[in-house]
């Protein structure tokens, strides 16, 4: 066991040989952030009295939901064998929506701590993240966490882990992020087993941007990993992709509070501040170099994450539209994955079509908009993106069901995913049934151990991204885990189902579904609207239609009585006030043709059980 380092290596003057860069990767909730807490504490960068659980989960939304959304890098000192080392640790998110955060973090490291909950074993995102780490040629340190739990099965899962990455079960470290057991041994092992970064200190500076965050007080804060050369404060730097140059106002390391330094050298991880106000000027994946002595070749970056799910966001109060626009612009500064463009809905007015990485991302963005910008929003039912080829061979990309062409269509292609499901073997039958019902094609099945199975499916994204995970959990009593990634597209028999109120199409309720599911959607939506829309002075037919073919219908009977029976002298003031109140209420109605639809009905109809989905996956 090592005592904590007393004299920490100084940034900009640290020999790469004593630097270790690693990230902690795991399935969601396996305890990455809690382990990070113990590391912060044992290395002395956070005093015990300042400690709080999941210290690095700083956003309100992260703390409330108990999940990590943004990666966080921290520099920590650690002494082993009389040498003071500098460790850069990156805590990563576990949720599949934020996989792109993990892949960025990996690019800044030489090693990864692969953490597995000793009571749960290997799960789908364990495999996905392990795969990413191996793709990046990282050295893997397998660790079982939560060994304090009575339900922990260290022998079983150590064997599973060892057979997965090759090696001896004895080499799997046992730790508890909660009690701290084994954490110091883990820090020692990191120093011993992980390679030191290599780079050319005399070459022109090259640093990889792996994160870029907008901060109200400091502007854009750019997180980099230096590969070659050295960056200094006050010098001019250049972004290699755009050739834009900026003055380096501040450079430093997070420890875990931002600590300015005299620079950053080979292998070091830290932050830069240039005074730019837009993260797009400091793009993740870009290479930073020195303007005066620029590098000739940039480091290989990574692709921007592609939005998978689209939804319309509309302010409840139409006059809030400019507020929403500004709010999206601000969030975008911090969230390169967020894309949006203005759209109008006949039913909902002015709003935006917004692209998200998944439902959790959608939910988080929506919640931040509502909370941080004080907006009340309606979001339309989320959908994936379709490519529609018309008979004239023109191709249309449809991100909003109401844009689905009604004319002659040659074919419709939908995005597909490669899904990996891990579960105890007793559930294989139930899982196969579920996946087949979701138009999945089995790609393979492997036994990870005697009783744990990995199933691989090729499935339409639209079938997996909404309620699939909940169903999977309920069919496997919570034992299954799921991971997926985009994997091509397929031609499918897809149709647009429109909803009509009194013959008028309500764009906000249109949906693209597989032909076999159109009827179910039509019945569900018309039934729901019949319950939600109050009776009018005339009968209101509600229909679901594919093109001109009606597939489901309901009707709201006309209201027949709306009159106060008696109105004496003493009732007049009371009645007038009631009338004024009713007129006020009418203003909050949205008109669809002649039908008055209360805002609440729109919200309730659009709040699918899927979008109320628990954040935790």
């Amino acid at each position, binding site marked *: 066991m090592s005592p904590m380092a007393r004299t920490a290596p100084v940034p900009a003057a640290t020999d790469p040989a004593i630097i270790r860069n690693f990230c902690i990767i795991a399935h969601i909730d396996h305890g990455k952030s809690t382990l990070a807490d113990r590391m912060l504490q044992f290395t002395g960068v956070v005093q015990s009295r300042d400690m709080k659980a999941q210290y690095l989960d700083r956003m309100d939304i992260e703390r409330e939901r108990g999940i990590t959304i943004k990666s966080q890098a921290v520099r920590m000192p650690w002494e082993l064998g009389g040498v003071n080392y500098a460790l850069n640790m990156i805590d990563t998110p576990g949720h599949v929506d934020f996989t792109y955060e993990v892949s960025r973090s990996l690019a800044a490291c030489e090693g990864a701590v692969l953490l597995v909950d000793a009571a749960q074993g290997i799960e789908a995102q364990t495999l996905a993240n392990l795969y990413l780490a191996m793709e990046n040629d990282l050295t893997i340190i397998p660790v079982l966490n939560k060994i304090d739990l009575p339900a922990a099965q260290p022998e079983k899962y150590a064997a599973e882990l060892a057979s997965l990455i090759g090696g001896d079960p004895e080499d799997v470290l046992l730790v508890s992020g909660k009690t701290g057991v084994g954490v110091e041994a883990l820090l020692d092992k990191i120093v011993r087993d992980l390679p030191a970064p290599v780079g050319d200190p005399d070459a022109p500076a090259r640093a990889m941007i792996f994160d870029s965050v907008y901060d109200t007080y400091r502007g854009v804060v750019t997180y980099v990993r230096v590969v070659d050369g050295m960056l200094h404060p006050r010098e001019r730097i250049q972004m290699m992709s755009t050739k834009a140059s900026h003055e380096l106002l501040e450079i430093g390391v997070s420890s875990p509070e931002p600590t300015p330094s005299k620079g950053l050298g080979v292998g070091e991880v830290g932050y830069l501040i240039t005074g730019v106000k837009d993260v797009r000027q400091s793009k993740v994946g870009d290479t930073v170099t020195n303007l005066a002595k620029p590098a000739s070749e940039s480091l290989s970056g990574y692709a921007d994450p592609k939005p998978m799910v689209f939804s319309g966001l509309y302010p409840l109060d139409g006059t809030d539209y400019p507020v929403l626009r500004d709010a999206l612009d601000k969030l975008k500064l911090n969230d390169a994955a967020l894309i949006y463009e203005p759209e109008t809905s006949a039913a909902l007015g002015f709003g935006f079509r917004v692209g998200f990485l998944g439902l959790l991302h959608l939910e988080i963005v929506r919640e931040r908009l509502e909370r941080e910008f004080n907006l009340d929003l309606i979001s339309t039912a989320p959908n994936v993106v379709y490519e529609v080829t018309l008979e004239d061979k023109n191709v249309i990309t449809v991100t909003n069901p109401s844009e689905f062409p009604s004319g002659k269509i040659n074919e419709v292609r939908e995005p597909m995913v490669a899904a990996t499901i891990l579960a105890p073997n007793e559930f294989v039958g139930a899982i196969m049934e579920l996946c087949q019902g979701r138009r999945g094609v089995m790609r393979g099945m492997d036994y990870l151990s005697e009783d744990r199975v990995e199933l691989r499916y090729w499935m339409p994204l639209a079938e997996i991204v909404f309620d699939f995970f909940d169903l999977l959990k309920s069919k496997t009593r919570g034992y299954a885990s799921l991971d997926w990634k985009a994997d091509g597209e397929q031609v499918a028999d897809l149709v647009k189902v429109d909803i009509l109120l009194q013959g008028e199409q309500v764009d906000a309720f249109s949906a693209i579904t597989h032909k076999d599911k159109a009827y179910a959607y039509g019945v569900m939506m018309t039934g729901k609207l019949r319950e939600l829309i109050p009776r009018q002075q005339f009968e209101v037919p509600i229909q679901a239609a594919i093109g001109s073919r009606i597939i489901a219908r309901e009707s709201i009977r006309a209201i027949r009585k*709306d*009159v106060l029976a*008696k109105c004496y*002298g003493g009732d007049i*003031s009371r009645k007038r006030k009631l009338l004024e109140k009713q007129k006020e209420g009418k203003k909050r109605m949205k008109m669809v043709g002649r039908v008055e639809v209360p805002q609440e009905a729109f919200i309730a109809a659009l709040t699918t059980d899927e979008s109320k989905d628990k954040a935790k996956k």
Partner: protein
Amino acid sequence: MPSVLPLGDPAPSDGLLPQQAADGAAARAFGLYVHIPFCAVRCGYCDFNTYTATELGGGASQDAYASTAISEVDFAARVLDRSGLPARKLSTVFFGGGTPTLLPAEDLARILRAAIDTWGIEPGAEVTTEANPDSVTPESLQLLADAGFTRVSFGMQSAVPHVLKVLDRTHTPSRVPLVVQWARDAGLAVSLDLIYGTPGESLEDWRFSLETALSYQPDHISAYALIIEDGTKLAAQIRRGEVPEIDDDDHADKYELADRMISDAGLHWYEVSNWSATPEQACRHNLAYWRGDDWWGIGPGAHSHVGGVRWWNVKHPTAYAGRLGSGVSPAAGRETLGPETRGVEKVMLEARLFSGLETAALSPAGRKAVAGLIADGLVVPEDAFRGRLVLTLKGRLLADAVVRRILPD
């Protein structure tokens, strides 16, 4: 539990009215409403400002009530005079409740005499009292007629015992034809009040009540859909599930039946819930409410209206008597309506009448909306072409919705 008074501005203690009350008053009729806030028992659906003897803790206030009411008559005359209103004879008088006939007929006669002595009364004026069937005798009715009453309105409500029971009514159905005959013998015009849509009332029950009421050949019928008023015993019973909920569609069916049967019997509607045998037998006092005329309301919780000024008295009989005893206005609050609000009230009230509403009184947007109302079968096209908005049967059932459609946003 009596209903809640509106929120308004405070009323001045001298009761004096602002200038607008007097403007154009000479051209407006002037009526008197006298509220009698006593009942033998409180019916479960009723939220009128009325009290039983037990609630008041003894009969003392009932004995003194006529004198107290007369003191408000004196007060009213002084206020109107000092507020610059011209002297006007009474064109209608209406005693309502509560149960006016719970007081000795002599007390009602005394109040009426005081009012006539104060203001005078127009020839042929209408003088009505409400009455419960079990609170009148041939003698009391004769006494009222002799004192100048011309009309009596009986709270019959229903002819079906189980319906009367849910309504907490104390009279037996067989009493109604008797009291109608006594009133006729005394020379009084007769109106019957009916309530439909009571929980548990079938369409057949309602048809029977209508047939029965019509068989007494009343000069006038009021038929009200039962309103479940907040805070009443009936509202609580429904909330607790002891009594079934009321249903608007059932109300609509019963209204349509009522209109058909009452019309077939030769009466004609003149307001959404009121029918009379001839136009002259319409209740002119109630019409005055709907046409925005002036009236003074005597009694606790009574509402008054003079030239766009509305006010209402304190509700409790003791507080009311206390105010008058010390020469202070019994008004609890009032509102002075501007031209726009008066316009809204005019539309809201006159739309309910068979005489209808002048479409010229509507805003341009309101006039435009009339086309849609014709298309929806809610107003009579021929009347609309002649510049009057008159509701069809369907329109009467949706009168509040019609009003919302013709009023500017």
